[in-house]
C-alpha cells in the first residue's frame, strides 16, 4: 500500500518533469545562448505535432519516424527563420520579442486557414506497465527517458564538442570570442535551429496525448516560460534540470490530489517564490555562488 503510493508519486513526478523539460528545453537554450525570448516557441511545438499527425495519418509512417520528420522539419524552419528574420533583431531585444510574437500569430492563423480548426488525431500507444496493484503508461515513462536523454545530449554537446565549448565561450563573452575568430553568427544560427528542433520533437512526442489544434502551443508555452524563468538562462543544463525537478516535486502531488488546474496554480506560486529570492533563477544562483568562490580564490 505504502509502496503503491510511492510508486504512483514517482510516476507522477516523472511524467510532470518530462513535460516541463521537453516544453522548456528549446526555449531555454535559445535564451541562454542568444539571449532572445522566442515567443513563437509554442507554435513551433504545434508545428511539430502537425508534422507528426500528417506523416502518421497521410504518410503512414511509424511514430518514431514521424518524430524525426517533426524534428528535422521544425529545425529547418528555425534555420531559415533565423537567417531571414531573427538575426536582424539581435541588437534589439524588444524587436525580437515583437518579431517572434508576429511569427507565432502567423503560424497559428496560417495553420488554421490551411488545415481548419482541428487535425486527425494520432492514437496513443497503449503500453501498460503493471507494478504490484498499480499500472502505468509505458509511453509516458518513455517520455521521461527521452527528456533526460535530450538533456544528456545537450550536455555532451556543450561540454565535449568544440562547437559546444565555443558556444559557452560566446555565452560568457561574445565580443572576446569574436576577437578570437569564433564565428558567433554561426553559433547563433545553429542554436536557434537546435532549439527549434527540440520544439519539433516535443510536438511530435505529445501529439498522441492531446487534440491537435492550431492554438495547442499555449498549453506548452506557459509551463515552458515558468520553467525557464525559474531555471534562469545562465546555464541551460543546470537551469532546466533543477527547475523541472523542483517544480515537479511541488506540482506533481498537487495535480494528482486536486487536478491539473490546481497543479498549474502551484507551479505559478512556486515560480513567484523562487523569483522573489533568486531573480536569476537556479542557474544564475549557482553561477553567482561559483563566481564568488572563484573571486575568493583569485585574490592576488
Amino acid at each position, binding site marked *: 500500500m505504502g509502496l503503491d503510493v510511492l510508486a504512483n508519486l514517482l510516476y507522477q513526478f516523472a511524467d510532470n518533469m518530462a513535460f516541463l523539460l521537453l516544453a522548456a528545453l528549446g526555449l531555454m537554450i535559445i535564451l541562454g545562448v542568444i539571449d532572445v525570448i522566442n515567443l513563437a516557441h509554442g507554435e513551433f511545438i504545434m508545428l511539430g505535432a502537425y508534422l507528426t499527425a500528417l506523416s502518421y495519418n497521410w504518410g503512414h509512417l511509424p511514430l518514431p519516424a514521424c518524430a524525426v520528420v517533426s524534428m528535422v522539419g521544425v529545425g529547418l524552419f528555425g534555420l531559415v527563420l533565423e537567417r531571414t528574420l531573427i538575426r536582424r533583431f539581435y541588437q534589439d531585444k524588444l524587436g525580437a520579442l515583437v518579431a517572434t510574437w508576429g511569427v507565432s500569430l502567423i503560424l497559428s492563423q496560417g495553420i488554421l486557414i490551411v488545415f481548419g480548426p482541428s487535425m486527425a488525431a494520432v492514437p496513443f500507444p497503449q503500453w501498460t506497465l503493471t507494478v504490484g496493484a498499480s499500472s502505468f503508461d509505458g509511453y509516458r515513462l518513455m517520455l521521461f527517458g527521452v527528456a533526460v536523454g535530450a538533456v544528456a545530449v545537450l550536455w555532451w554537446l556543450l561540454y565535449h564538442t*568544440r562547437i559546444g*565549448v*565555443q558556444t*559557452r*565561450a560566446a555565452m*560568457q*563573452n561574445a*565580443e*572576446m*570570442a*569574436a*576577437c*578570437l*575568430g*569564433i*564565428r*558567433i553568427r554561426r553559433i547563433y544560427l545553429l542554436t536557434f535551429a537546435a532549439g527549434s528542433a527540440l520544439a519539433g520533437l516535443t510536438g511530435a512526442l505529445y501529439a498522441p496525448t492531446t487534440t491537435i489544434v492550431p492554438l495547442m502551443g499555449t498549453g506548452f508555452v506557459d509551463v515552458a516560460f515558468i520553467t525557464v524563468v525559474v531555471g534562469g538562462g545562465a546555464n541551460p543544463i543546470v537551469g532546466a534540470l533543477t527547475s523541472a525537478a523542483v517544480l515537479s516535486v511541488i506540482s506533481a502531488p498537487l495535480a494528482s490530489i486536486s487536478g491539473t488546474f490546481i497543479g498549474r496554480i502551484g507551479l505559478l506560486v512556486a515560480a513567484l517564490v523562487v523569483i522573489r529570492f533568486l531573480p536569476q533563477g537556479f542557474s544564475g544562483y549557482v*553561477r553567482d555562488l*561559483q*563566481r564568488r*568562490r*572563484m*573571486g575568493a*580564490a*583569485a*585574490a*592576488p
Partner: protein
Amino acid sequence: MGRGVLDVSNLSAGYGSGSILQGVTLEIGAGEIVAMIGRNGVGKSTLMKAIMGVLPATSGEVAFMGQPITHLSPEQRAAMGIGYVPQGREIFPELTVEENLMMGETINRDKRGTRYDIVYAYFPVLRERRRQLAGTFSGGQQQMLAIGRALVGAPRLLLVDEPSVGIQPTIVLEIGEVLEKINAEEGLTILLVEQNTRLIARLAHRGYAMDKGRIVARLGRDQLTNQDMLVQYLAV
C-alpha cells in the same frame, strides 16, 4: 600602403558620442616589437579595438599583411592572423584553462598546426592547472592565460594591451621574458601598449607616443631606454 605587417593610416574611431582616435598613422614591420605609450585615457586601447575591428573606423584605413581589412569583422581579422590580448585579459572564467586555450585555435586559419607545445613550454603553470576553471586564477595567471590563448592560434601579429597592470612584478618579468623569447625565436610581430617603463625598455625595438587620440612622437630604441624621456610621455 606599405608592405609591413600592419599599416594604419589616418584612422579615426570612437564610441558613438565623439571621436577618440583623431587620424592615427603607424606601421609595423615583420618581426618588430613596437611599443605604444601614453597617459591614461589618451586612446591606446581604443586604437587596439579599432585595429581588431571591435570598433568600426569612422575614417582612415587599416591594412594587414598588405591587405585592406578596414571593413572586416573581428572574426575575419582574427582568422587572418591577428591575436588580441585585451586590457583586463577577458578570459572566459567558467571555462577550464584548457578550454580557454582551445578558443584561440580559430586565430590564423592558414596556420599549419596549433601551438600548445610552445604555450605550455613558456607557461608551465597553464599545463599544470589545465583542468582548473580560469576564473579561479590570480591576475598574473590570467594574463599568462590570455597571452597563451592568443599564441595557441599561431598569430602573425600579437596585440597586447597593458599586460603589466595589477600584476606582481615577478610575473611581469616572466611575461616580458616570454614575449622577448617568442619574438626572437619565432619572429612574432608585437604591438605592445604599456606604461611600465622597465617592460618597455626591455622589450621594444621602437615606439610611438600617443596623446589625445594622436601620435605625437616616434621613439627610437635609445629614447625608449631613457627613463626621463619615457616619463615625459607617461606623466599626468
